């Protein structure tokens, strides 16, 4: 619309700024999760993720001095480093009431002939007149700043350790196992049905189309108990077969609707020419309609994949909530309940679960948009 009179507004810069703000607002939450998944648990719980790139100044929890003592000239000396890494101590103290009583480089008199020196680089020297063997060494409170630090440890821990991640990897495989067959199977069934509804004449066709449109909005909540009963009756109970069948059933209305709308728009000439040349309906469908409908098939496949990957309810009900069979979404809900405070685990697990749909989304966005438009704009 660049060529219309008056659209070149003097407020273009305002539009740009508004869009930047809008995009930033919408991106901010996800970036937060992403950045957090690369920070250590201590960092996450002591400062906001937006400070991840700045040097952190934080008061650390109490640290007990420890080390081997060496007798030097009538005194007993323990030397060592209080915190590992590249830190800078800005203040320290020996009691929780005055955690910033001393500057780095100061020597504190702890009484009973003990003195403690803490340097800026977090090294310390504890000097005692008597041996400290068998006594409790003093605690210190540090206020230290640490440089920005990013780590892959969270991912390593979540993916390999069985306790920390509590089976994220297993859930990842479960989710994949649920979503791929549940995406592939409805496509074929729907494609044949859509062709019949689009290009074959038979009584009751309009009624069937109306029924498909109606079933499009039936909440799947209604299906839970009756279908669970049905699955138990026919003996498949809770399991992958049940989930695949349920997802197939729930996905069919949209699949048929999308594909029929697309197929109806294909040029009539091609189909009629093929018929004149003696092709059967089956041949027309397989050799002409199916290849031409690829964009619609792709649209639906993405929808169904995103939906089955992200689904929680169907998997919980038809697959079960025990540790072996939990899908990623179910696992995340459990983690939120049991380890709600451990953001390094939560953020990393959540990011693992949304990574695959995000990749699919950005790679196939074109088809997704096309499908949305076909499904909604009337």
């Amino acid at each position, binding site marked *: 619309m660049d060529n219309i*009179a008056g*659209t070149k507004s003097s407020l273009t810069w305002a539009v740009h700024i508004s*869009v930047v703000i*809008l*995009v930033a607002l*919408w*991106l901010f*939450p*996800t970036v*937060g*999760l992403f950045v957090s998944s690369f920070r250590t648990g201590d960092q996450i719980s*002591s400062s*906001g*993720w937006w400070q991840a790139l700045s040097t952190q100044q934080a008061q650390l929890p109490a640290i007990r001095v420890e080390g081997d003592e060496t007798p030097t000239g009538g005194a007993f000396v323990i030397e060592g480093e209080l915190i590992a890494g590249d830190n800078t101590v800005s203040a320290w103290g020996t009691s929780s009431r005055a955690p910033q009583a001393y500057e780095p480089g100061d020597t504190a008199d702890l009484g009973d002939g003990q003195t403690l020196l803490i340097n800026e680089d977090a090294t310390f020297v504890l000097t005692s007149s008597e041996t400290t063997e068998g006594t409790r060494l003093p605690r210190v409170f540090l206020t230290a700043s640490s440089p920005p630090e990013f780590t892959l440890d969270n991912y390593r821990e979540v993916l390999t350790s069985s306790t920390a991640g509590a089976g994220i990897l297993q859930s990842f*495989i479960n989710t994949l*196992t649920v979503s791929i067959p549940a995406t*592939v*199977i409805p496509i074929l*069934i729907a494609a*044949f*049905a859509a062709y*019949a*509804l689009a290009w*074959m004449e038979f009584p009751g066709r309009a009624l*069937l*189309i*109306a029924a*498909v449109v*109606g*079933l499009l*909005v*039936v909440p*799947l*909540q*209604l299906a839970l*108990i*009756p*279908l669970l009963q049905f699955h138990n009756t026919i003996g498949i109970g809770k399991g*992958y077969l049940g989930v*695949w*069948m349920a997802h197939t*059933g729930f996905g*069919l*209305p949209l699949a048929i609707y999308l594909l029929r709308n697309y197929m109806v728009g294909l040029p009539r000439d091609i189909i009629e020419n093929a018929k004149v040349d003696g092709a059967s309906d089956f041949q027309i469908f397989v050799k002409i309609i199916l290849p031409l409908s690829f964009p619609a098939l792709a649209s639906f496949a993405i929808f169904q994949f*995103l939906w089955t990957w*992200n689904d*929680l*309810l169907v998997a919980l009900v038809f697959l079960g909530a025990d540790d072996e069979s939990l899908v990623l979404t179910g696992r995340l*809900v459990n983690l*939120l309940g049991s380890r709600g405070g451990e*953001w390094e685990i939560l*953020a990393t697990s959540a990011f693992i679960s949304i990574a695959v*749909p995000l990749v699919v*989304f950005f790679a196939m*966005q074109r088809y997704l*948009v096309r499908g*949305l*438009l076909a499904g*909604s704009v*009337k």
Partner: protein
Amino acid sequence: MNPAVLGLITIILGVGGCIGYFWSSNFVLDRFIFPPRGPNAGRNINRANAIRPWLFLGPAVIALGLYLAYPVVATFWYSIHERVPGGLEFVGLKNYSEMFAEAKFREAILNNMLWLIVVPGASTAFGLLAAQLTDRISWGNFAKSLIFMPMAISFVGASVIWKLIYDARPEGTGQIGVLNAVVTWFGGEPQQWLTIQPWNSFMLMAVLIWIQTGFAMVILGAALRGIPEETVEAAILDGASPWQVFFKIKVPQIMPTIVVVWTTITLVVLKVFDIVLAMTNGQWETQVLANYMYDKLFRSFDWGVGSAAAMIIMLLVSPILVWNVYSARKEMR
């Protein structure tokens, strides 16, 4: 057996089975039942063509009937029965009256009404705003795809993301939730956002609005592009301000699309379950119908009341169902 292997076998069996069914049923029909030769060749062709649509439709019709149509009837059946040892006992509307008497249900209905007003409204408004703004700038498509992105994130994943935003730490320590960081920066006290009634419901709604705005933007953006340029041009020549062009020329022309977007998001809202389950599980008066229903069905195993709650959701959906069928039929004529 490893489920992944099982999955692979299912794909092969499923796809192979589908293809096999469609091909062989066709083959049998054309070759053996009504072969297009012999004395009745013409009649046979007609008969085969009358049957073929049902071969193509068969699996889909069975699946739709079994997985969507039958459950509506069955759920209604369960909702007027009570589970007793050994079977079901007819209780009429007792489950419904029991449910309506329950405070948690009334809370769920009220919250759902609130969701129904706020979420579709806010998502459509933000979507329209984003669509209009990104329409005119060079990097609009890039901006669109970033705003659209939450669409790919699961409701549970989004809940984790937003829980981090609402996180609260004791006063005096560094806040890691951005909302509390802002509040304390302005000198306020950190709040446990998800426990403050009635605002916590809005905190949950924000998650869904964040997800659905992209959807609204994509659809409305396409509709805005479809507006005939002459109408806009004529309005500008007549001296309309940009606001007037937007609200008096563009919005009325895309009204049908706005209705579609609104109803589509309404359907999502009626079924919203994951967000509430993951963030508050209905505590602090944030209960909604779908989560109430899940509670009844799978935590207290009260099928009667659970099914009654499901029927209420169905009832709320049915006006949209009727409207969709009506407009689809109108369009086909």
